[in-house]
């Protein structure tokens, strides 16, 4: 078909369509669209612009100066950013890796059907509904020098002096991770259990007839079929590792000496305690970008978009 022919066709269609457009669906969508625009798009765009600016003066007529990529550079050259990034990777083991394995194991045990399965499931899920701040405070008590754990360890003679779990360079981050694992395992277990329960029984029977071992069934059937559920868990874990704030803030405040500082707590300081508006905005977008990129990578690596 010639270009002009094609053009004519398109033009004709456009002309025709214009008079035929049914505006009603758009009208119905309008409230939702306005809400999204006001509460999501506007702040996002505003913050994005701010990340290339420096606030010189406050006020309605407040002066802002364009600084190009300086805010991003400031974040990325901040040694604490990299320290926090490293800690966040470690933290993600508590947020994602360890509870994923534990949750998968528990889900499979429960799915196979054991005695007291429903009460066990409820018990494992309880931590999920405990508010994070409450959990943080309770774990702080348990881990404090005169807390339950030290009492127990001293009582059985494993240690002589109480261990300072939370204000220790080495132990503060693992201590927070302990609480996070406790809270996340049940969460992942429920998601994975739902996935497992959705798997048809006959594929396992088919494998059984083929003489496949338990491990082969797990490796070649359960894991691949559970991929969508695992992917949800992984993406949630990545995003929550980057968002996790109260976990660390309540228990260690990021210390001692930034030993448990993670990106979100550091971001909080930069943006909201230091009043570095532009740098804070840039930091926020870096976190946003990281969450986006890592999630996309996770989805790509898993070889599918069926999330």
């Amino acid at each position, binding site marked *: 078909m010639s270009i002009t022919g094609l053009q004519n066709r398109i033009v004709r269609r456009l002309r025709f369509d214009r008079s035929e457009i049914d505006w009603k669906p758009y009208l119905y969508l309008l409230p939702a669209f306005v809400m999204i625009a006001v509460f999501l798009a506007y702040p996002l765009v505003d913050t994005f612009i701010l990340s290339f600016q420096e606030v010189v003066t406050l006020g309605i007529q407040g002066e802002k100066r364009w600084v190009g990529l300086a805010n991003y550079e400031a974040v990325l050259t901040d040694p604490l950013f990299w320290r926090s990034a490293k800690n966040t990777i470690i933290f993600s083991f508590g947020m994602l890796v360890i509870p994923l394995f534990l949750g998968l194991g528990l889900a499979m045990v429960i799915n196979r059907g054991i005695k007291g399965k429903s009460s066990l499931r409820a018990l494992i899920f309880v931590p999920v509904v405990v508010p994070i701040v409450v959990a943080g405070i309770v774990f702080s008590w348990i881990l404090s020098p005169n807390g339950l754990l030290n009492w127990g360890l001293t009582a059985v003679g494993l240690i002589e002096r109480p261990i300072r779990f939370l204000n220790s*360079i080495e132990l*503060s981050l693992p201590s927070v991770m302990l609480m996070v694992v406790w809270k996340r395992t049940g969460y992942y277990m429920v998601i994975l259990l739902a996935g497992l329960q959705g798997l048809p029984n006959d594929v396992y029977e088919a494998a059984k007839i083929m003489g496949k071992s338990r491990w082969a069934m797990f490796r070649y059937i359960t894991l691949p079929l559970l991929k969508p559920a695992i992917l949800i868990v992984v993406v949630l874990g990545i995003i929550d590792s980057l968002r996790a704030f109260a976990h660390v803030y309540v228990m260690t405040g990021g210390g*001692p000496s930034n030993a448990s500082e993670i990106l979100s707590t550091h971001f909080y300081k930069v943006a909201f305690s230091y009043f570095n508006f532009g740098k804070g905005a840039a930091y926020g977008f870096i976190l946003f970008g990281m969450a986006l990129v890592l999630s996309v990578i996770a989805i790509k690596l898993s070889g599918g978009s069926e999330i």
Partner: protein
Amino acid sequence: MQEIERRRLLQGIAAAGTIGLAGCGGGGGNGDGSSDGNGGTGGDGGGTGDTQTANGGGSGSSPIQITLRERDDPMAAYAPAFNEGHDDIEVKASIQPPEEKYRSLISEINAGNAPEVVGLDVIYLPRFVELGALADLGPLYNEMGHDDYFDPLFPDFTTWNDTIHGLPFWIDCSVYVYNKAHFEEAGLDPESPPETFQEFLDASRAIKENTDYTPLALNLAGSGSLGLELFFFMPHVWAGGGKLFNEEMTESLIDQQPAIDALKFFKTMYEEDLSTDPTSNDTWTLPPFINQSTSMAFSAGYISHIADQAPEVWENMGTAMFPKPEGGTQSSFLGGNAVVIPEQIKQQSPEKFEAAKEFIRWSQSEDGMRTTVEDIGYLPPRQSGLETDYVEEQSHLYDEFTRAMEQGHAPPMHPKIIQMQDPLNGALARALLGEQTPEEALSQAKSEIDSILQQG
């Protein structure tokens, strides 16, 4: 101070959590940096402003309403105390916990509806001046002509870029409290508390040996308790002539001998088990003192509540300035709030600006200072504020506060001071936990603070 702000925030988060935020990851979300500031409760200032302005300064009929923004419930007492003597101006107190207060103040200023008068934590003063947010109060200061301000408050507490942008409102200083009964039990003279590092160590050792009490309730570097490293640690550095940074604000001096000596003093206290854990996350030092598990506690000047909570302790309690190195001068951290007027009030409404200034005039008067001392429990900016019958009656406690007000230091003033707390806090933690020697830790802190200073 930051430490208190954190506590308040935690309470807020905890409350929100129990309502049902559950495990969703609390606050702190990642995406939108600045927009979070919009979350403030909006101003109850300025709202009625336009109509008032339109009415002009008509005398009599209805008073001009202005809003005072403060951080704790007790500070609401300023409003009735002021209103009692003023028919033409009515002050309303608007209380917001610190963490929320500054964020919402910023968004209110950006929206053009800032409160008329703000009690601004003095360590934020340089940053807000830098952002062009505060009106010049130099003329007001000169016009009032008070000549008995405590020395450390001018110029440091009030002045940035050679201009006075705030006047001292209520002052909080750092001291230590001690239990005289415990001192006697330990064989110490309850009327002459230790004054030097060495005396302090000796007294602590005596308490430890002769009694069942932990000598000192201390916190310096609890993670997340940013603020205490300035409030409790810096006076010991100042006592030896040290500083956080130089006059030109180009270089940190925290690696110098006075800071090293101070840190070594605390390290000894800690290593010999003479204090509670100074790196603990439990930032409150007074509770163990109040329940008599410790004989001494580093404290703020806000102690009057002990009278109700533990009368027995209150009866036996003494206050003293922090110890000093041999040959030094005892010091204290004079924090607290400056009273400021947002620049936009001056621009938008001359009447409100005048009303706000009238409030500040009152806050610096004997009447206003009496409210600060007696109703609220903090210290007044001027000496005459401590020359009252009430203070006279409590002289055994106030004498040391008076000395602290005279000998103490205003905070190190810099727009990025909050940012500098983090390296200092970390250095103290590392040294106390034995990760680094005091010299190494402070040297690292110096270079980190240097780079903050050099960011300009």
